[in-house]
């Protein structure tokens, strides 16, 4: 029953906020709600605890068109194969197939992985040659003066991870999960620096985020 209580609290807050305004007196010619004595009973929203923990519509996998737009939005570039693979990713051709498939199946998982690898490493490589940090796609929070990836401190890494997760998922990393990602990035960055594969540091983080369920569901 947590959600109804939260709802009541929220309603109370809204009412409180509204009460700061002077009460409006109905003017002539305006409509006011009418109490309907014989109105049929309204079915309240179901209790989430009795609905397997959910209420409202089920989450959905993004369509191929949404994926295409999302990839361009988050990485600044398009996956070169998306049109070639669209049919197998689930896009309807409205000739032989007239229903879009949004199953998160093996083919979708594999091709999304391929696509994420292509665009993320491409974007990370482009970032390395972009002198102004603010113009970078994947690492705008990392000062341009830091060229040694292993020298990126945890606070800077976290700031950039929060930025990237907001960019890719629409929600920022936080708490223990942020710590986990920071730790992973630190290890990857050190390896990328040592192996002289700098594009793979933020590139790998981008791949992980683009193949995370939070990127493909809404």
């Amino acid at each position, binding site marked *: 029953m947590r959600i109804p209580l939260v709802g009541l609290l929220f309603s109370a807050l809204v009412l409180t906020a509204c009460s700061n305004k002077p009460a409006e007196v109905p003017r002539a010619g305006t409509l006011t709600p009418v109490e309907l004595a014989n109105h049929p009973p309204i079915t309240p929203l179901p209790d989430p605890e009795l609905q397997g923990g959910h209420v409202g519509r089920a989450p959905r996998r993004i369509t191929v068109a949404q994926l295409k737009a999302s990839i361009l939005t988050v990485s600044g570039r398009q996956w070169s194969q998306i049109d070639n693979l669209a049919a197998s990713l689930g896009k309807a051709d409205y000739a032989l197939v*007239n229903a879009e498939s949004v199953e998160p199946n093996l083919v979708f998982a594999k091709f999304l992985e391929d696509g994420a690898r292509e665009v993320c490493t491409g974007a990370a490589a482009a970032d390395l040659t972009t002198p102004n940090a603010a113009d970078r796609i994947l690492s705008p929070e990392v000062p341009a003066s830091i060229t040694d990836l292993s020298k990126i401190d945890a606070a800077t890494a976290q700031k950039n991870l929060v930025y990237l997760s907001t960019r890719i998922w629409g929600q920022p990393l936080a708490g223990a999960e942020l710590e986990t990602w920071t730790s992973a990035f630190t290890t990857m960055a050190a390896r990328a620096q040592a192996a002289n*594969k700098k594009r793979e540091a933020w590139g790998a983080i981008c791949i992980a985020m683009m193949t995370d369920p939070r990127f493909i569901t809404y």
Partner: protein
Amino acid sequence: MKKDQLQLERRNFLKASAAFGGASLLGALPFRAFAQAANLAPADRCFVFLYFSGGWDVLLSLDPRDPNIFTPDRVSETRILPGYSLLSNDSSFPTSVVTPAERPGAGPSNIKFGPAIGRLANHYDQMCVIRGINMTTVAHEVGFRYFLTGKEPNGSAARGSSTATEIVGQMKPTNPVPSIAYGIESYNDRYPGAANALRVSRANDLILTLSPSPTQLDSEIEKQLVNLRGQTVTCEADAYDTRGLVGQYREARSQMATVLGNSLNKSFTYADVPTDPPALNAERAAVRAAYGLTLPINYDSAAGRAAMVATALKKGISQCVSMNLVGGLDTHFGTQLTHATNQRTAWNAIGDLVSDLRSSPHPSGGNFMDHTTFLVFSEFSRTPLINGTGGRDHHISSSALLMGAGIKHNTVYGKAGDIGMGPGLVNRSTGLPDPKGMVILPEDVIATVLASAKLDYAITRTEPLKAILT
């Protein structure tokens, strides 16, 4: 434990270890499951669903009519025109009903075929032809979705799971890709993501799905990526999974890891690769010979697709393969010869596939045909009369072909009417025409397929055609 067993398990363990280290896309897959999956073994029961797209002319294959009886002179009476004489421009087509030559030890054929049946006729002793099925529709997508699920679609939207999904969901095979759907739709309405088919629209996409990603990272970074993905999901991420969508996606990623770890893409490559072991290239040469494939391989031909079915089953990659085997059958305006040629291409490919499976021993005994059930279908058939433009239109009555395990062989069940080939009424216990009998619907056929492997067929809400079950 025997030494041989120990060696085998050690080999599997090493194979799995190598795959675990080498594959770049591993998700949070438990290692034990991975090691198990690395041991590819054919399923004890396999299923093949082959779809002829566009609506086939059953007069040319599964439900022939004698042109000496159903003559043009009697067409106003019979409303049936076999049209076999229109194939005479191609001398390779018979112009009469085909009775297969007797196969040694199998007895004479009880089944007669149309002139487009091709090499498949040689396997009459594995077949059960169901005739006079009432499709209840002449709309393409409704008809094929009806046959895919065994449930009449809601409008044109499929209801329920595909039969292949139902089978995989019930049998839970250990094959790395339990079900492949090639050029055909697949549905899953009640099973976990592992029952989802690997659904591709082209052969190249199938091979791409099974191949490592073109962009590989440093091996240490790959390991970190695997570790990161294996972390516990947060409450926020978990909230998206209240109805299983994320779980399905994670299972798909686990399947992906298994597939890549086993280098399954090599199994579906039929051209020689100089860097591959000679034994693998010899195997590829044998596949090319069996299916008449020439270089460069046309994987999207009927023969190429049939070869892929055999590979998936024989290598233990899949338990169920559903495939759109041939198109070009919606010949409202085409000639009889065009339609017959397209059909025969597919029947020949199936004939080669059955020959291959019959000559391949199954690890559990017998040959692969003894362990495989086929369902060959189309969305409906074509009108028994030829229209004003030389083609045939959509006809509500159709036939289907069952073959292999669990099915009574060398049998015909049901009958389309001798006037206008309408859906037949049959005595369900004998399959013989009976004016007081019942119509045969697609769900009856699907229930029979499920029952052939002792699976639960309750979803079809009908009884199987018990007369054709063994």
